[in-house]
């Protein structure tokens, strides 16, 4: 549990951090909360030559309202997100996901930016990011760009971030008038990571029919994905417990699921259906209760 030696820089501005990354290229890694990177370094599964710690950069942390939603700085901790009244009100599934990560110590140090950039296939946030239709802002030498949720997660531990870019913030759109969301997961009992995590966000029209719905699934496949067949099946009509259960069964169908000693592929596909039904049902109750 002793990492190989590495250099450490702690730039005070985003420009300096980007310059550092540019200078060291592939040898450098961005250090945010350190709760994904440091464990793999200690196990010597990774040995970057330079860590660029972005904790000293002002303005990368915090939750603020924006026109049409709210924004979370990359260095905002899971604990801050979990306990934010704004997040709880505007995107309950995000607060639920944050509150289900690891344990208290992990939530006090780990950050949303670090987790998203790390893109663990069993992390909790990706399901919510997909279901909420979030946008991810990244900064690079050439300036800022915004990546849509659907384009961000490209593979296991792989994202649309380019080499030398730093994830700076996440924007969550405002919920619809009769909108709500929920996140539920089956946790691996050792790590707390999702064996299957499902986030559902939906909006109802005046008659109670589903106007829009997005369902994000994490932990099941090599990359988090949207259960589009479920979304399509439920859009346009008023849901019932039965219709949700039927539609949700499709959440895992045909998915090339992960298979390990803790949960086989068929079990994961099955759980995707169960948790999709439960998360959608919960979001639906929340939305209709408004």
């Amino acid at each position: 549990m002793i990492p190989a030696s590495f250099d450490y820089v702690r730039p005070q501005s985003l420009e300096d951090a980007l310059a550092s990354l540019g200078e060291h290229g592939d040898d450098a890694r961005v250090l945010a909360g350190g709760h994904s990177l440091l464990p793999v370094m200690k196990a010597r599964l990774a040995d970057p030559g330079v860590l660029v710690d972005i904790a000293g950069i002002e303005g990368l942390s915090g939750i603020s309202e924006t026109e049409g939603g709210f924004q979370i700085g990359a260095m905002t901790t899971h604990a801050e997100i979990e306990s934010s009244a704004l997040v709880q009100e505007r995107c309950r599934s995000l607060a639920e996901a944050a509150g289900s990560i690891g344990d208290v110590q992990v939530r006090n140090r780990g950050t949303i930016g670090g987790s998203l950039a790390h893109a663990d296939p069993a992390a909790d946030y990706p399901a919510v990011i997909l279901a909420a239709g979030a946008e991810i802002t990244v900064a690079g030498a050439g300036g800022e760009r915004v990546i849509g949720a659907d384009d961000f997660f490209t593979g296991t531990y792989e994202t649309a971030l380019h080499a030398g870019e730093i994830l700076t913030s996440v924007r969550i759109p405002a919920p619809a008038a009769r909108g709500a969301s929920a996140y539920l997961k089956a946790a691996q009992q050792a790590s707390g990571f999702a064996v299957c995590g499902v986030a559902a966000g939906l909006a109802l029209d005046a008659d109670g029919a589903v106007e829009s719905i997005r369902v994000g699934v994490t932990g099941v496949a090599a990359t988090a994905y949207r259960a589009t067949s479920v979304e399509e099946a439920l859009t346009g009509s008023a849901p019932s417990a039965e219709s949700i259960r039927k539609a949700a069964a499709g959440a895992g169908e045909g998915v090339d699921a992960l298979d390990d000693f803790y949960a086989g592929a068929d079990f994961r596909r099955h759980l995707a259906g169960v948790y999709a039904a439960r998360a959608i049902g919960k979001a639906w109750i929340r939305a209709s209760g408004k």
Partner: protein
Amino acid sequence: MAQAPKFIGAPIKRRDDPRLIQGLAHYVDDFNPPGTLHMACVRSPYGKANIRSVDVSKAAAAEGVVAVYTHEETKGIGPVPVGGLVPDAKVPAQPILADKQVLFAGEPVVAVIAETRYGARDAADLVEIDYEPLDAVVDLEAALEPGSPKVHDDYESNQAFTWAIAGGDVEAGLKEADVIVKEKMTNARVAPLALEPRGVLAHYLPGEDKMTLWTSTQVPHKVRTLVAGQIGMPENRMRVIAPEVGGGFGSKLNIYREEALAAFVTRELGLPIKWVESRSENFMTTIHGRGQVGEIEMGLKNDGTITAFRYNVLADCGAYYQLLTVAIFTLTGLMLPGPYKIANMEMNATGVFTNKVATDAYRGAGRPEATYILERMMDIAAVELGMDPVEIRRKNFPDKSEFPFNTSAGLSYDSGDYHLALDRALEAADYPAMRAQQEEARKDGRYLGIGFSTYVEICGMGPSAALGGQGWESARVRVEPTGKATVFSGASPHGQGQQTSFAQIVADGLGIDANDVTVVHGDTDVVPYGVGTFGSRGTVVGGSAVVYARDKVRAKMAKFAAMEFEADANDIEFEDGKVFVRSAPEKSAGFADIAMMAYSAIALPEDTDPGLEETHFFEPSNFTFPFGTHIVLAEVDPETGDVEILRYVAVDDVGNMINPLLVHGQIHGGIAQGTGQALEEEMIYGEGGQPLNASFMHYALPKANRLPRFELLHTTTPTDVNPLGAKGVGEAGTIGSTPAVVNAVIDALSPFGITHIDMPLRPERVWRAIAEKRA
């Protein structure tokens, strides 16, 4: 003691806790003598491989590296000590560093000594070992098939030993039976995972020809005798110190390679050598527990009377034995009849070598395995006979009047009242209401289950002859000139809290405050030769030694008081810090005044030497047999396979309790650990013999948020095999909980026709069992 106990039986808070909670305690890793060098081991990544070559040149040349050791330089060190063998056991010599072959993943091949811990770890990566990977033996049953790869090339097969125990006539018992139930069950291999991993610091002083070995152990004197023997040093030149030890659960009741290695290297280099295990090393190289696969056959009459019980079992030894590997499985046999009148019993065990780290004592050590299969079979039989699980157990309990109760496995249970513990538990749980709740829930499509475990365990290890030696424990009690008392115990507690309970024992006997008693243990230069803490013996055997040593000191003090008061020594009383004449209480002096008399020695009673220090070695006349009933109410989510424990009621009879708070702490931890085995824990190996879940990211320890509030009750049936009447409590929770939890889950799933699922009952396994029945 004439007066009523003031401290014994009182729920006094543990003295250890403030320093532990505040991080002020000193573990091995907290000691840093000047000049300390650090050791890192290069370990096999393979279950089995030939070592073609080892090149340490780059490591040796690395900055800060002082020395590098391979098998060649260390072959003079004696092999790892083993004991508790059975007659036909094949005993492979476990080298300190592997020579031509590695036989399990994690086996050390090279040791690097460097000025810093980081430097040693970095240099370890520079060692080049050319391995030729070989087929590994992983599965117990496959290991015995003809043509299986072998763990040890020079043995004919992977059979390590055979051992059988029988009482009565099982064949006759089966013939007599109305029904015979059979099942195959697994006790998975699990990791003890003490929160403090192992660690050793060895410091040899050439001028004094004296070595101090700090090591995280449960048995410092065994380490001294055996490690000194391994490196060819007189044991009285070695001082072993077990400082704060952060848990052991049996895993530190062992002598490990790194202890002899560090002791050897410090003698070569004359500088302190430190090695502290990483968590991955702890998973891979510290012993595991359990590891049994067996077939059970049980005969019963239609009224539930058990006529026969047979267990044919394969026991996973690993590649080499550790100190008590083989002995653990024999404990399963001894406790096979459990708390029941089973006239005909039999266990046939076959030890099996596998390319894995050794199994050995893990909290309960052989008894949880016996209790698990027996309590599972009781439920399976109850289903078969259409009986309530409570009634089938009652049917087979010996009555209170039948004690001492002699079992068919050859043990004599000195005392017990199994019906009483069961009654108390049923009442506390409100069993009829629990069944009604289960019935109601089923109507709502919810699956609740009630699980029982009525257990008896063997504790207070134990009479020396029965253990194959060293079943006693030592204690010395000194009353200081100022009237403070110091206990020197040969037991080596490592979290059990005897610093508090031994003080209670001494305070009561001497009529002083418990805060005036200090308890010292774990230092072989300071305490009398001792055996150690394991097998729920710390208080039962070690505490009894304290009682006798205390009484000897008291008797001597009484002589000084009698001289002072011109009274009879038998008429001297000790109470509230005073020593006085019972028949003439105005003749009184302070406890410290009498103590000072003994040290000033200006006047001495007849035939009495100065000083107040007495030693006692206590040899128990029998084991002790704590027992109890655990009841679990659990709910299973059939869609996800999740198990939630809703209620946990435990009635444990551990005899007299010295400190109920300590007893509860032990039961809490034990229940949690046993629940872990039931629901989550299992070491999993790939085909090549590599563990796949050797980290806390993959191997789940039970967490508080998965456990309910424990409802703990007691009955008290004292034993007379020791002066405290205590039976031991270190393992009760672990033994009682595992079958109770599993039985609750299986009971919940009974509407599906499920009668057994092997542990651990992880969600996937539960879900699959339901899916199979639904299909």
